[in-house]
Structure formats: C-alpha cells, structure tokens
C-alpha cells in the first residue's frame, strides 16, 4: 500500500472510529486499529498512531490520564502472547484474543476505579466488556479485508 493511501486509510479509520464510539457508549474501536498495527508489524505508523489513539481516548474520556495506557498495554501483551502460541489468521486466536480483551477491559476498569477514586459500575462494565469482546473479531476481519482489498487494487 502506498504511503499516501496508507495514511488516508488510517485517517478514514480514525474518523469512523470516533463516530462509532459516539454511537456506542464505552466501545473502543481504536483497539482494532492497534491490533492491525501489531499484526502488520507496522511500527513506523505505530509511532504516531499509538500516541494519537491514547490522546483521543483520554481526551474524550472522563477518567484521569493513565487508564488507556494500561488498557493498550494489556492489548499489546495479550496479542504478543497469543501470536507466540497461534497463527494470527487462526480462528481460535481471534476468538481467544477477543475473549481475553473483554476480560482485560473489565479488569482495567476494576483496577483503575479505586486508584482514581471513582465508583465502579459492575453491571455496566460487564455489558461493555461483552460488547467489546463481540465487536473486536468482526471489526478486525472487516478492516483487514478492506486493507487487503486496497493492496490488491493497487497491485492490479
């Protein structure tokens, strides 16, 4: 994918992610972008995209700064661990990673609530974790397909 098309793809992704996050409270769409960056080992783009993702999530959130860093660190750690055991394209990997991400989402919220002196809504967090776990594999597949389609189109 050419540099320009790549950046255009990421800008479109960020706009769509912000709009989708406005529609579904608590959902993190940018996580899928981070997973794609890890999957493609695209560390050059990660250098500017990861700080941007963190700033966006911290900016639109209401918690003190820090929780998103823990959450994205958990996403990266889980992805690395998963890739160590499975192939990235494997269905079990996608399924397990999504389930672990759902659990990590709940875990981070539970961990940060007393640290930041905020009330912890068990039911609400559970619901959002579940939505997050279900959302990730579908969005991941869809976005990977658009990236492949983009590349194929360019090669033709």
């Amino acid at each position, binding site marked *: 994918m050419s540099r320009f098309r790549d950046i255009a793809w990421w800008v479109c992704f960020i706009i769509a992610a*912000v709009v989708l996050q406005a529609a579904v409270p608590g959902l993190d769409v940018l996580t899928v972008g981070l997973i794609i960056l890890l999957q493609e080992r695209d560390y050059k783009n990660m250098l500017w995209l990861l700080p941007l993702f963190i700033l966006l999530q911290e900016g639109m959130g*209401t918690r*003190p700064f820090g929780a998103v860093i823990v959450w994205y*660190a958990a996403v990266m750690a889980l992805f690395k661990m998963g890739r160590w055991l499975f192939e990235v394209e494997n269905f079990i990997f996608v399924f397990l990673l999504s389930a672990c991400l759902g659990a990590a989402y709940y875990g981070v919220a539970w961990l940060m609530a007393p640290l930041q002196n905020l009330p912890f809504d068990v039911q609400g967090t559970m619901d959002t974790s579940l939505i997050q776990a279900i959302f990730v594999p579908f969005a991941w597949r869809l976005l990977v397909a658009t990236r492949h389609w983009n590349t194929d189109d360019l090669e033709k």
Partner: protein
Amino acid sequence: MFRIGFQELSLVTLRRLLLIAGVLLILFLGMYSWNQRTHVLDDLGARLGLEITGAVLSPVRSVQDAAENMWSRYFDLVGVREENERLRQKVDELEARLLANGEDLAELKRLRALVQLPVDQSWRPLGARVLAGRMGPNAVLDSITISRGYSTGGRPGTPLVTHLGLVGRVLKASAHSSIVLLLTDPSSRIAVFSQQSRAPGILAGMGTGQRLEVNFVQRDADVKPGEILITSGLDGKYPKGIPVARVLHVAPSDYTQFLAIKAEPLVDLHHLEEVLLLEPTGAPQPLDPTEAPKEFVGPPLPGPKTATP
C-alpha cells in the same frame, strides 16, 4: 537435553520479561503520580484529544441534521396545509389568552418586586449542541459532549440547562468542545431546596437510569411527592432557582435522622439535542439603593442586670 535447554531459555525469557514489566510499571506509576500533581497530561488530552473529537463530530452532526431536515421537510409538506390552519387557530387562541393573562403578568411582576426575587444578570445563556453521549473506554462518568469549549463559553464548572431544568455542569473542556457531567452521575452533588416547603437538601446522582436521592433534609420538613426541587445556589456552582428534579417518594430514613427522598430529573437526559450554558458574566447581582438595611436577627442585646436573691 532439549527439555533442560528449553527450560533454561524459558527462565531467561521470563526473567527478562518480568524485568521489562517491572520497569514499565515503575515508569507508568511515576508518570501517573506526576500527572496527578500537575495535570499536564490531563490538559493535553483534553486540549488535543477532545478538540479532534469535536472537530470530527461537528461536521458529522451537521450532515446528519441536514439529512434529517430534508427527510422531515418532505413529510411535512404532505400535511402542511392542515397544520397551517390548525396553527392559525392556535395563534388566535393564544392571542386571546395572552390578553387575558396580561393582568396576571402585571401581578407576577408586582409579586416579584414584593418578594425581591433577584433578576439575575450575573449569568449569560449560550446555546450549545450535544455532539455525543459517553465516548470510549475511558468515559466512565455519566456525561455528554457539547459543541462549546473554553474559548466559546464552556469553561469547566459552567452550569448547563434546558427550558425544562438543570442538566449538569462542564467537567473538562478543549477550545471548542467540552464534556458535561450530568446530574445523574454518582459523583454529582447539587444544593437544592423544595419549591413549596423551602426545605434545603443535597441532591445526589445514583447513576444512569437510577432515581436521584435528596440527602440531609430534616425529618420535620413538609416535602410532598410531586414537589419540584430547585437549586438553592448555596454551593456557589449553580444559579439560584433553576428547577432540577421532581420528588417521587418521601419517607423517614431507616438509618439516618433525615428524610429518605427519591426524585427524578425534570430533563430527559437521554434525548438531549440542544442545551444552554449559563456563563458567569462577573456582574454583581443588582441591589436596590432605596432598600432599607435588613433588620439583624440575633441574640438579645444585654440589658440591665437584675439582682438575684
């Protein structure tokens, strides 16, 4: 042989991983405590992240509005003639009612002057559009995002209302967008009193979809279900007299010496589209120069001592 080698490799890897994790944890905690003291990263997130979010959402909302308007206009055209006739009838009716109410209005003005209700010039209303509700994994508080920031009248602490009543106050702001803490959030506390019985209390949010609680209302207070709670202004955060909630249930508390009062917000916080920000103008409340100083009510003045047997 291979097994031992694998184990050795695993131990080395594990030790290295633990070391990296430890260093990262220390770095994170250092950054976290530094930010708690200085709020530099909080400000950076609000100024940059929230600003980009607002910049993305504002045109999206404009396009959505335009599409909705076109759609509704098309359907409106179908019944526009009937509606026009109905509205004309209503205008006639309202004009007649306005004439009849002229006397009531004059009476209200007189009564206001009589009870000296403050004509508050210290707050200036500013319209704002609701861009979104809670957004992202970091939005744990009950909040909304609006289209005004600190450079356009939405500074942190600014109260928000609709024509029905109080919505909340600005929690954090970027230049052109801000996040508003709704009155239903568990961390929201508002000084109120009941409109009829004038019993003071503190209105506390209990979370989305939950009823509000009014704390610290004396047991002998004559608060009734259906009564409206208005801001008392005693907390210094909200102007006095804004309707906030309606009392649903009143009973003596089982655990405290106060009343246990449940209430519901007057504003439908799930379907907000436009809101009004009450920006403090800094102008002092006007005082009537002809007003005589109020009589001081306190302990009795010391009189001549009487001899005791």
